[in-house]
């Protein structure tokens, strides 16, 4: 029987027309499902009252599939068939997966995404994630009393096309209609109702178990725009546990512990860390297998001291993201804390100091992303008044562009551009009579194609033959609200068109994205020079070719000495072009231009004479 929920004034649904929608935080370690009930976003719990579903799937020998806590418990006895943290494999090839060799899984590298061999056959990360989503969908339907119209699923801001597509595929496989993929930091801001807050810039500080992300959001006229994102893919709450664990080993000067002792001490360290959130000090007590006893007490101040460098490390991406957005800490109106690790008081203090204000911490930092996703799902499902409608804009993490002559990248959509976006740019042909053009779509911040990531290639054929530079080919990059890219090229005179939907066979890891960004900054100077050099080289090629063509056609206008002089300039330029001295090429280009000045003038006269021959003066419009 359907139970009623309280609607907003005037928004009661028709019977059987209630549009049930959920928000899902599909996390690396834990996943959550939330919905808006009686006007308030709440996380939905299972029969035992737990909201968090461990993101663990176990394939049993009997054909049974366990998800969540039950699967987590079997991890030690059946590691090969118990898949944890499958999110790290979404949309990735085997070579993208860090530390694959230390994982207990039987990987199969196939073109595209990595697969895992289990007792129930080969499984893709999409299928495994779908098992988690299916459990959450069932929980949602049982809690809401009916089928769901759809879900908003959150993804890290750094997820690339392949990873977003894989997440959508997993949802479809689980029988969920995806209303929207939403960046996790954006969801957190929504949960805090910042959409109803004063206009301005907000920062989202997300310190999870193993990753750190900082996003800068701008709210104007009820519209969210992500100005920039930055992060550290290898920094999280686990590092604080590990630091405390090292401190314990240090203090008790024990031998390197066995694997099981190490696990136990790690657990004790984590418990102590969590206790220090509410207490001034925490005991760490453990009996080791060799009979040694660990009996220590750590104070909150001591813990803050030994992990100070980790806290400082989070502020590096904070500064970078602000710099990308062209802002300083004083421009930020509010700071949202996400992730269990942000419960640590000294982190809150450091963030408060950096931004000069107390961060928002009153929502459960583990649930805040799911709550925001639920709020967004409620809007997209049409359960809020039209005047409340708002749109969320996300950004693309890396610039998108095309390869141009000389292996250079022409950026069409700059990094941190807001989504959805469409950008068009005109390109032209390089050679006379050129009828086809190859397009190479790349992603990255570097100036040379070889330093960026190749996303797709396609060709435009049937361009009408024209002189070089006369054709106008408009290339449009379109990235939809979910961050999926399509590129089309159209020759404006004839209307011939070609396009490609970019579905990369496998994705980039956070590390790689971070690395590519870093490289972009580090090589900025070098890249600029290289770019200038390549441009000179392309220009030299073009000049040489054009001059030689002109000599073939109109060489008769010149004396033998003049031809020889021009040929000499061409050879000099060709020699300079083969080297890597941009200034020498420039000098060669200038020399060739001077040598051909007179020739060009004579050709011009000659062609005008040719055009006028046989015409009367009054036939000409002047």
């Amino acid at each position: 029987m359907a139970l009623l929920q309280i609607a907003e004034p005037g928004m009661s649904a028709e019977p059987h027309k209630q549009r049930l929608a959920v928000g899902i935080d599909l996390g690396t370690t834990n996943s959550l499902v939330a919905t808006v009930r009686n006007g308030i976003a709440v996380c939905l719990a299972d029969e035992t009252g737990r909201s968090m579903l461990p993101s663990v799937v176990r394939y049993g020998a009997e054909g049974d599939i366990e998800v969540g806590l039950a699967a987590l418990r079997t991890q030690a006895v059946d590691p090969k068939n118990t898949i944890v943290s499958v999110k790290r494999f979404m949309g990735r090839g085997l070579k993208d997966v860090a530390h694959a060799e230390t994982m207990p899984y039987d990987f199969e590298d196939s073109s595209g995404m990595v697969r895992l061999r289990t007792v129930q056959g080969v499984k893709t990360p999409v299928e495994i994630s779908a098992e988690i989503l299916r459990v959450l969908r069932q929980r949602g339907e049982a809690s809401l009393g009916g089928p769901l119209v759809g879900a908003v699923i959150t993804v890290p801001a750094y997820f690339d096309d392949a990873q977003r597509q894989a997440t959508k595929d997993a949802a479809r496989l689980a029988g969920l209609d995806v209303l929207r993929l939403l960046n996790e930091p954006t969801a957190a801001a929504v949960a805090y109702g910042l959409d109803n807050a004063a206009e301005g810039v907000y920062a989202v500080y997300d310190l999870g178990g193993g990753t750190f992300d900082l996003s800068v959001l701008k709210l104007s006229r009820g519209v969210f725009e992500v100005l920039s994102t930055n992060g550290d893919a290898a920094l999280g709450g686990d590092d604080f546990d590990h630091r405390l664990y090292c401190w314990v080993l240090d203090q008790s000067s024990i031998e390197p512990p066995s694997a099981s002792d190490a696990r136990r001490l790690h657990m004790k360290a984590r418990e102590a860390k969590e206790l220090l959130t509410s207490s001034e000090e925490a005991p760490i007590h453990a009996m080791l297998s060799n009979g040694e006893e660990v009996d220590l007490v750590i104070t909150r101040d001591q813990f803050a001291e030994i992990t100070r460098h980790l806290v400082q490390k989070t502020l590096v991406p904070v500064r970078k993201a602000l710099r990308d957005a062209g802002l300083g800490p004083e421009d930020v109106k509010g700071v949202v804390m996400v992730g269990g690790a942000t419960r640590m008081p000294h982190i809150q203090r450091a963030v408060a100091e950096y931004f000069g204000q107390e961060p928002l911490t009153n929502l459960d930092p583990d649930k805040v992303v799911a709550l925001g996703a639920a709020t967004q799902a409620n809007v997209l499902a049409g359960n809020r008044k039209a005047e409340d409608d708002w749109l969320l804009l996300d950004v693309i993490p890396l610039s998108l562009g095309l390869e141009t002559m000389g292996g250079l990248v022409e950026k069409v959509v700059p990094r941190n551009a807001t989504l959805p976006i469409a950008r068009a740019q005109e390109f032209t042909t390089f050679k006379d009579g050129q009828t086809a053009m190859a397009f190479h779509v790349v992603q990255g911040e570097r100036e040379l194609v070889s330093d960026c990531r190749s996303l797709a290639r396609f060709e435009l054929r049937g361009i009408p033959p024209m002189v070089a530079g006369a054709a106008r080919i408009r290339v449009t990059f379109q990235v939809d609200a979910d961050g999926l890219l399509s590129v089309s090229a159209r020759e404006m005179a004839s209307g011939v068109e070609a396009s490609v939907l970019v579905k990369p066979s496998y994705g980039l890891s956070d590390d790689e994205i971070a690395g590519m960004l870093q490289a972009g900054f580090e090589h900025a100077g070098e890249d600029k020079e290289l770019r200038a050099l390549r441009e000179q080289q392309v220009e030299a090629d073009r000049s040489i070719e054009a001059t030689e063509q002109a000599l073939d056609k109109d060489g008769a206008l010149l004396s033998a000495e003049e031809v020889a002089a021009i040929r000499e300039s061409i050879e000099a330029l060709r020699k300079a072009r083969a080297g890597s001295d941009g200034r020498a090429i420039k000098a060669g280009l200038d020399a060739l231009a001077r040598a051909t000045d007179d020739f060009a003038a004579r050709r011009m006269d000659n062609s005008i004479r040719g055009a006028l021959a046989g015409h009367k003066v009054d036939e000409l419009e002047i």
Partner: protein
Amino acid sequence: MGVSLSESAARHVANFITKRGKGVGIRLGVTTSGCSGMAYRLEFVDETQPEDLVFESHGVKVVIDPKSLAYLEGTELDFVKDGLNEGFKFNNPNVKDQCGCGESFNV
């Protein structure tokens, strides 16, 4: 007579209004649609209308328009749990038959 809330319903409504941050009470009502003639409405109230009747139940304002009251006279709104699902249920003495879904009814 009029309409009322069970103690559990009143507690939940008060809680939801607090979390919502605004609202003076809860509106009960009926509309003429649904598979069995009439459908229930349940909404937050930001402002009452001149024709509204207002009852007080366990400290919560219950607002109803006179037309709806004709169909809901004596109704108690309850808050119930059914497995993982939870929500409000109209205990309406005027109902002759209702569709199995509980969202609409006939008088």
